[in-house]
């Protein structure tokens, strides 16, 4: 079962709560501003992510989701490109 961790950069308000509580320090605040004028969080070190969902739980804007493996193949391609330029 592989999981896809995804941050919706346009929902994120860059509050930074997820960045601080991530046990693996995966997340950082991006320099690229989103459509709302916030600097969203992004996965700086996606390979360290253990999919523990603490960030999802802490996020006040439901901007972070983790989807299960079944649809991992289709979204694999889209998710990874998005994370890189996040």
């Amino acid at each position: 079962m592989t999981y896809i961790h995804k941050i919706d950069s346009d929902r994120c308000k860059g509050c930074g709560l997820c960045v601080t509580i991530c046990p693996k320090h995966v997340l950082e605040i991006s320099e690229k501003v989103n459509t709302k004028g916030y600097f969203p969080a992004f996965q700086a070190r996606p390979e360290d992510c253990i999919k523990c969902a603490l960030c999802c739980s802490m996020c006040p804007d439901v901007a972070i989701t983790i989807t299960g493996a079944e649809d991992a193949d289709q979204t694999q391609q889209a998710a990874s490109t998005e994370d890189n330029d996040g």
Partner: protein
Amino acid sequence: MGKTFAKPEALSDQITHYCPGCTHGVIHRLVAEVIDELDIRGRTVGVAPVGCAVLMYNYFTFDFLESAHGRAPAQATGMKRVRPDLVVFTYQGDGDLASIGMSEIVHAANRGEKITTIFVNNAVYGMTGGQMAPTTMPNQRTTTSPFGRNVDEVGMPIKVSELLASLQTTAYIARQTVILPKHITRAKKAIKKAFQYQIDGRCFSFVEIVSTCPTNWGLTPVEAVKWAEEKMLPYYPLGEIKTPQ
């Protein structure tokens, strides 16, 4: 290792108007998750407050009724009494519930209305720009206590959960917080228990949630979590303060 995480069905897709890092958003999600898990969305009606959460109905996907400032418990009472089969909850801030609406919440609790109240305590009036609230901490600066809350002048912050727990009528009263993930799971459990007591027709249920207000506290969201932890939690102890016997 890992788990999935998705937006609950009871929550809408709309991005909230809340400030970055405001934990209203977390509490909304918990309420929505509980409503999904208890499968009651079709018979639930929320009563929104006047305050930051006045627009909360935009963030949920079930029936909602706006309330006048402080009057949600009375509206919920009227609704529940004529339609006891509905699940009715109010969601209120500290100005709404503990200031102008104190009489309504005390009497709804004392009558043992079979409703649920989610009380968000962030120590200030958020929507109107950070004025002092009944739960503002001693010496806490707000836009109407610019020199810090002077308890000799305006008294001590009100511990609403303890106040309501002193009533003799059966009730479930708990205080939790959502400032850290470990707290969030406990807060969700309390909210679920509160709704369950209502569904069972057992008693009035009330969950106070210590919440942050980065903007009006003049802190970053992360600093606000620390401030709440260091300043508010010692004064507002967490846990189940009253449970039905």
